[in-house]
């Protein structure tokens, strides 16, 4: 008989090993559909690896892809620490991108050191602002934020499409629904010549470090953790519940908004309605892989981005679908949930008595 015994404390090495093991297990499990589709497994994995980290191009591509994932991962991690279930990072990302385009396509003429921060700020403000509605309804009427934030995603994306077909449409785009391009002063500088990775990555890493410091070292972070771990005890102790929730929402929505602003200002240069291939949702996986630790979000985002980028290479070379990437990411979420169980519980094999 197998028994699960709760560990008194999760050892540090195990809290690291669990997500790493989960990622590896997810990759191994992917070998099954890979084999079924008749592809050479070993070569497939070699290509996956090569495509994500095997060259300067691959590496910078992974880092470029990881940038929005770090932001949306932080959006989920910070909110989930306070048990604010913000599932709306996707919509907040688009709101941030929209705001970045509004500010950065010529409405304001300013030098880069003014305009770039302004674009990022506008993106963060739009993302945060979008979360205010669900937070208001949650604290005023007890509306479940899972539902409201999730539904907001669809509303925002439809709104973006409407704007791209209407007032924000680039007249020179030959009929494509896309915005005017960002002006040069609003574009984030590239980090490596001729590669796509941009300064947004540095902003993302700075945000992760700042979030870590906030959560672990400050009064506000302490209150966020207290509210998340036990709302009843936090309230009893006099932690301001409304204020804490508001701060978490501002941070979470702001990070998601920054993801959109950085994509527009750093990578794409203009806004389309297919800006994000689901970064908002993938951010939840990233946050879970990271165990809701802001610093852990960085490697988790790099892993997920690497799988996406590598799977593209693999699918091009051996002709399997790049949906395999989604599969790996989905599996790694499942594996990390199972892995979390093994980290928190000790598995003991108990020999049963001989009686029937």
């Amino acid at each position: 008989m197998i028994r699960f015994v709760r560990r008194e404390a999760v050892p540090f090495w195990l809290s690291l090993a669990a997500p790493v093991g989960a990622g590896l297990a997810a990759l191994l499990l992917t070998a099954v559909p890979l084999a079924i589709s008749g592809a050479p497994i070993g070569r497939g994995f070699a290509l996956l690896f090569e495509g994500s980290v095997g060259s300067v191009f691959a590496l910078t591509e992974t880092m470029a892809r990881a940038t929005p994932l770090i932001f949306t991962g932080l959006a989920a991690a910070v909110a989930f620490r306070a048990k604010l279930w913000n599932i709306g990072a996707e919509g907040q990302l688009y709101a941030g991108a929209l705001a970045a385009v509004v500010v950065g396509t010529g409405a304001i003429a300013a030098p880069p050191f003014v305009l770039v921060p302004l674009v990022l700020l506008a993106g963060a403000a739009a993302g945060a602002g979008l979360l205010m509605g669900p937070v208001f309804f949650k604290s005023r009427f007890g509306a479940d934020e899972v539902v409201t934030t999730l539904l907001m995603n669809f509303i925002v994306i439809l709104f973006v499409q409407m704007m791209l077909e209407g007032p924000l449409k680039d007249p020179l785009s030959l009929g494509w629904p896309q915005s005017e391009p960002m002006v040069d002063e609003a574009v984030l500088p590239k980090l490596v010549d001729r590669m796509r990775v941009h300064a947004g990555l540095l902003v993302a890493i700075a945000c992760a470090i700042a979030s870590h410091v906030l959560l672990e070292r400050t009064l506000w972070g302490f209150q966020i953790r207290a509210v998340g771990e036990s709302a009843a005890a936090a309230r009893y102790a006099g932690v301001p519940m409304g204020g804490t929730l508001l701060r978490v929402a501002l941070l979470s929505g702001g990070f998601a908004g920054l993801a959109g602003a950085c994509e527009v200002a750093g990578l794409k240069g203009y806004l389309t309605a297919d800006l994000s291939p689901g970064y908002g949702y993938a951010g939840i996986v990233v946050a879970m892989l990271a165990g809701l630790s802001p610093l852990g979000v960085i490697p988790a985002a790099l892993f997920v981005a690497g799988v996406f980028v590598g799977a593209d290479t693999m699918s091009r070379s051996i002709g399997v679908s790049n949906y395999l990437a989604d599969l790996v990411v989905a599996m790694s979420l499942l594996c990390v949930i199972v892995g979390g169980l093994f980290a928190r519980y000790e598995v003991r094999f108990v020999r049963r008595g001989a009686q029937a």
Partner: protein
Amino acid sequence: MTYPTQTDGTSAGAAPRSTVLSLRGITKRFGALLANDAIDLDLRAGEIVALLGENGAGKTTLMNILFGHYVADAGEVRVAGPDGALAPLPPGSADAALGAGIGMVHQHFTLAENLSGFENIVLGTRPLWSPGIGGRAARAKVARIAADSGLGVDLDVSVSRLSVGEKQRVEILKALYRDVKVLILDEPTAVLTPQEAEGLADTVRSLASRGLAVIFISHKLNEVISLCERVVVLRGGAKVADRATAGADRATLAELMVGRSIEVRHSAPRGVGEPVLTLDRVSAAMGRRDRLVDASLDLRAGEIVGIAGVSGNGQGTLAALLAGLAAPRSGRLSVLGEVITGEDPRAMVARGVGRVPEDRHREGSIGAMSIAENFVLERLQGGDFQRLGFLARSRIRAETERVIAAFDVRCSGPDAPIRLLSGGNMQKVILARALDGRPRLVLAHQPTRGLDVAATADIHRRLLDARDRGAGVLLISEDLDEIFALADRIAGIHHGELSRAFPAGSLDQRSVGLLMAGQDPGIAA
């Protein structure tokens, strides 16, 4: 010091009774801890045996082994079958234990909150595919048991709306419904009024006279002495006594449990000062069930006023008013000279109110956070432990280490998660948080519920110290021994109505029982 194990046969004159349960050499280790050390225990039909021991003495482990939740490292459990012959119980199987007629009423309830009392009672006794939840026969049986045992409770509302005391009554009914041969009662009277506890004792006696064997776990030694014929005492995992109750008194039993003498002597107050808390016809409510109606009370510096009553009668609201979690709807509430009109827990702390909540797991502490974090939880808003919004971590650590020493909290250090502490040590941390700032008004709501004798004595001593320092202490408790041990004046609370507070010396257990039932004890204040 060691105590010789005393063994005593059946009480003289009784008919020979068959053994229904026999534990032999039960041994269980958890790592280095020897939780049960070769424990023997025999139980005969119709016998009421008390199982005594401090928290950590091994009672729970022993009961879990009996119940199939743990497998003993050595030893055997044997239960009488239908023919009366003892047969070994398969270890590690709760089903087998249930099937053999062993029932237990747990201290922590095992009820489905969203079902009614009746549904909880019959839950699991009917096949899954049977339509409906229980026919007329089941209802009649439940009604009969409820009438026989005197355990009145509304069985048709969902359990989540019942008070703690009512939930426990459902638990007892649930066990009785299952026709048990051996009934284990874990702290069953902790939440009952003296009259109700006496009623339960009568029930237990009558059930025992019909052949039920009862294991009675309690910290209330008076109750044990009056109800049980035999007492088994565990200490440090070993059985240190197995003797007849006759001839034992509280002090003897307490000493057997703890291994040394522990008495907290109630002393007269040194001098009563200004009022620190005044309620003038205050009405308030917490949710739908718990409310306070036109309550008036004066609490002065340097005295302890005890509020006796069964939980769910308005204590929750009274405590919430002092904790800053509720505001009066009408009437005048004055705390330390300030009239309170709104809800603000933080302001209460800032005024100098030390608060010990009823539920130390839910409201008193954050299990996943460290002792240090829990200690500073309600004091962070002030400037003591933060600078410009950043936590003063070394200061927090140093202060926590100081109170860990001052309050004798047994733990591995300030960074240990508080959930790893025993109930008594966790309560000491909460008490340290409430008392360390030298509050002028202290709210102690069920401060020792579920704690062992030694921890209880320690917490009582600290509350008396706070009083002697000049604080006014409002003690809300269901435990009359606690009320009498601490309070200088006693009021009863019943259906939201607070009685006058009488000097403790003018009351006895019976008159406090009347107060708890909302009746006038007929004593001039």
